[in-house]
């Protein structure tokens, strides 16, 4: 058994074949050189730093100033195509110890979106066009990452061509 088998298993776990596929103009839309800038978007949140992540991606770290136990990590990685981004999302999800995770497409964030098994959305993984986004609460006290995810999605959408 090799990596392929595990990926095939992950497709089954996360119902990959049922993921919505973009068609036509939307499928061709790409975002290249996308650089996130959330610093002025959230009152009371400070950007800790930006570091390189994976292959040509980066991770931004934020901390809520009045409540420093609230921290959020946003990872952004561009891929060659929408399909490649979907496969990267699948690979990310395959590392989860959970057999399956809930889809969260109702929020209209991303083209394909997953979250954790919790009431509050402490982690959100989505693909918009050719960009994979991984947003997580990483502070000592959990905080919803939805506002971050929504804004990231908007910025990707605005930057797409």
């Amino acid at each position, binding site marked *: *058994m*090799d*990596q392929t*088998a*595990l990926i*095939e*298993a*992950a497709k*089954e*776990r996360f119902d990959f074949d049922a993921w919505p596929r973009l068609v036509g103009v939307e499928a061709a839309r790409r975002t*290249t*050189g996308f*650089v*996130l*800038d959330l*610093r002025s978007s959230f009152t009371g949140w400070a*950007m*800790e*730093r*930006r*570091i*390189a*992540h*994976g*292959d*040509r*991606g*980066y991770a*931004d*770290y934020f901390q809520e100033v009045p409540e420093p136990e609230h*921290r959020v*990590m946003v990872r*952004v990685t561009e891929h060659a195509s929408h399909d490649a981004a979907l496969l990267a999302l699948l*690979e*990310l999800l395959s*590392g*989860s*110890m*959970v*057999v*399956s*995770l809930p889809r969260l497409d109702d929020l209209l964030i991303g083209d394909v979106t997953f*979250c*954790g*098994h*919790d009431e509050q959305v*402490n*982690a959100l993984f989505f693909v918009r066009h050719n960009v994979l986004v991984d947003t*997580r*609460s*990483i*502070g*000592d006290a959990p905080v919803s990452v939805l506002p971050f995810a929504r804004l990231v999605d908007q910025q990707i959408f605005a930057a797409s061509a």
Partner: protein
Amino acid sequence: MQSPFRTDSSYVALALDALSSARTSAAAGNLLTGARAFSIDAWIRFNGLPAETVVIGQDGVFAFGSQGPAVYFQFGTQSVILSDLAQAQLQDDSWHYICITFDGAMVRLYIDGRFNTGQNAMAQLPAGTLPVVFGQGLQGLVRRIRIYNVPLSAQAVLDNMYGPPTSGTLAADFDFSVNPAVDRGPFAYPISLQGSALAFKVSPAASLGTVGFIRPMGEKAVNPGGGQTDPYTVQTWVYVAARLNPVQAIFVNSDLMLDTGIALLLQYDATVSAYRVVSQRGSDSDSGQSLTSSGTIPVGVWANVATTFDGVTLSIYLNGVLDRTRVCAPIPLYSQFSDLVIGAAIAQGVASGATTLQGYVREVDVWSVALSAASIVTNMAVPPDLESVSLEAAYVFSNSPARNQVNGHPIGLAEGAVLSGQLGPAPVSAGVPMAVEEAPPPPMGLDPDLMAELRAGLDFSDLVERHAADFDAAMDADIVAFADPRDQILIASAWREARRKLALEPTSLPFLVTEHRIAGDRLIVVHRPAGSYVAYRADEAALDDCTMWKIRLVFTLIGGAIDALTGVGSTLTDKAIVQLGRLLTLPRVAAQMAAGVRLTAAGVFAVLGAAYTAGLLRPLIVALIDVGFWTLIRIIANLLLTASGVGSVRVIASLTATAATFISVYLQKPASCDPLPVVNMASLAFDYSPTSAAGDALTIRRNYGNDVAVPEWVPGRRNAVDAPCAYAISSVSGATPSVQVVLNIADVTTHSVRIQATGGGILGAVDPVSVTFTGTTATLTLPLSHHTLAAGGVQRTDVAWTWQYQVDGGAWMTMAVTQHRVYVVLSPPNAPWQQGALRTNQQLPWTDVLDFTCEWAKGATTPGQVLTMVTTRVNSGIGLSYDMTSGASFYTAQSAGVSRFLCGLFLDYLRTGGGNGRTVNCTDCATIVTNFANIAGVDVFASIMLNTANPSTGFACNPILAVGQTTWAAPFPPGNSFSYHEVTWSGTGSYPDAIYDACLQYDTGPNPWGTGPHTAGLPTNVVFSTLGAALPQLPLPTPFTANSYREGLAANSVPGIGRCLPFGPNPGSNAGRRPVI
């Protein structure tokens, strides 16, 4: 002290070519007929040294100028008096101070303040009627020419080089430092320019030429952008002279084709006929990111260009004004070392002349922080504080030799790049002000009567008499250093005169330093023939006796040398004291100082040379003397050229007074002051063999971005953490590891020297060993015969060695105390950690990880103990918490197709609580335990269990106590299952192999599947399953008492135990040994 303000360093001078000149009235030459005594001095810079030039002359009366590299003087048509080329030579493109004195019988020539030659001359010429001419056949710059009505003494020549002449001695003072030039003498002779002579404004800078470039040397660490997201600032002054290249590079530290490094460039915009500034991150292809200024840099104007990056935002400043910004992603590739070039870009590995800056660059400052807009403006006006920890480099090209002012590293100029200056027409000087550039004597700083009392009370006669043998020895050493009897006579004469003055007329010494206590203050007073002044004054408690004495010693050396070679008086500021303190840390300087009463004039010269080599001489000069910039650059050039060369007999002779004065100060050593060492320890290396020879230490680095420099200890590294080493017990048990030590002495010696080290903790003391010096250096490989590295198991401990030397069996003298952090592990590290000669390998063991492993597994002597202790700590000692909602990994990530351990972020969590936070999953725990154990020589890997028949289903679990949880619960819906589970596994990762799982505790009771009370146990050193590969009949009967991991974890059913099977390492995880990043 130099003005704290940063200027463009420009000055005005008269530019001449071979066909141009300046003229003044014939009457200006009336003094120069040979009938009366006179002197002439001139500041001049030759651009080419032709067969003959006339700096100043009057046809048929006199001529003073150059012949090739020599200076000459001639009365009428009498024979030419030529300077002695063996003593000094004129240099092309360097400022020289030349002087001729005539006392009515003898002509004396001086070059750069030092007497060169003398020759009898008699003349009685009629006064000339033709104009006095400045510059015939002369190509270069003229700054000042003065005619004196007295024959200047040698001391007066030296004093007048940088200081104002004695009142009433000037007959004419032709000042070309203003536009128009004027005669500031009593007769105010008119000056007219002939031909193409023109007053030029000269801005000292590096000219890149057509295809030149500048390559700072030894500057691998000046690497903005190398860390992908590291903050930086590059700020520079540039002048574009021509539009030849559409892209002109200012600062580049990587090939533009590579996805790493940064560049600061100029890009021509034809639509506005000017250059825009481009700040580039990564390559210039699509994968890079660049920011182009909206403003422009015109051709033919000096401009201040800066770029900053704060981790997210890239900015460009033009002349201190923020021009544009953009947010940036990290640079794609990490780069540990800089490939730095200034003035050209790197293409395909070499500096490209096609991108050479067609103009000049004056200064480049590199910071490891993003300066604020206010700081950018400030740094335009004020030089950076060289002590600032965030200042990486300050390359200054306004004087020669160019160096990084921060660390003294030299700078190479290639393919036609030169330090010269940008020339442009000089503006008309408003009101023709007097140029303020001469060095006035420092203010007295004390009540005149009290100072006179101090001065009158100086008496060293007894000291000189009592220590005559010491002075004899120093003098003899200087004399025998020269083979030519004439040189020996000169040196002997200089020494005798210095000793006579010290004994009988101490105030006639050029630079005598004394210390006094007045009104609760300590004062350092400098006595010169013209008077005395307070060079330093501070509260009595500010400095102890010994420190004060050392300051006097080194101030006597450097201030005395400056005085001897330039005639300029020095004062001590706090900044100067800091610089002198740095000088004292140089082994060569300390060795010379240790010579004490045996210090020679050659030794003084050696101190200058050591300060020059270390890059300290220029900042010392800047800190010690108070002159204008033009004077300063000439003094620096003069001293640096002297210090960088071979000490001629004249130079050494001029320093004898300094040596004699030093001896007098040395003899006043306070009782509280330890003797300075004679043998100095230059370095100590643990991992000294690049091929990991038997006996040396493990090759380690600090973390992903920083290596451990070898030798690990050099002077100045005072903390144990700064000089670490690591040993494997398996390598040193029954063996004798060794260290490599480099020693320096001041001079070749015939004495026997031994060294030893006491203390050393687990490294043990170093037995006495004889030292054989090769010249003045010895490299020793010393066995650690008394080490007890293996006795304590895994550990981290700080040790200190007191290194001592002994000369001719005398008392042991301490030369250094070295502190070290010692890491001891079981065996050489296993993958992902590596060993090898390449110190840039980021998979070498990190001391940042060893800091934790050696603490967590302290005392462990077996791999099993290490694993158990590390697993226990990860499970319950560092605050980790299981991801109960998404089960995702927080500390692993894919890169280049391989799953990697985000070790740097995890260390950040351990140290600060930051990083990626406390939430983890099983992959994280397995990876952490594996990496933190394998660095100590354990050999395990992260491996997974799942339903190999259908990996998509997972396996059902028992209630567990997940890491960081306080209640028992079965994991995730649906079906309380794990999709897979990853643990640290030994052996082949199969049924009988031991598992260590920091992710959870399970029920170790006889019925792990029951609903009753649970007995929590951490899975350490437990086999995967005692039942083996054959699937048993399920459910298993209770009680189940075997110590078997799977049965404790998985439900007692086919969907549980039946689907929980060994799989092996996760594909793409480097066989379960995830590389660290």
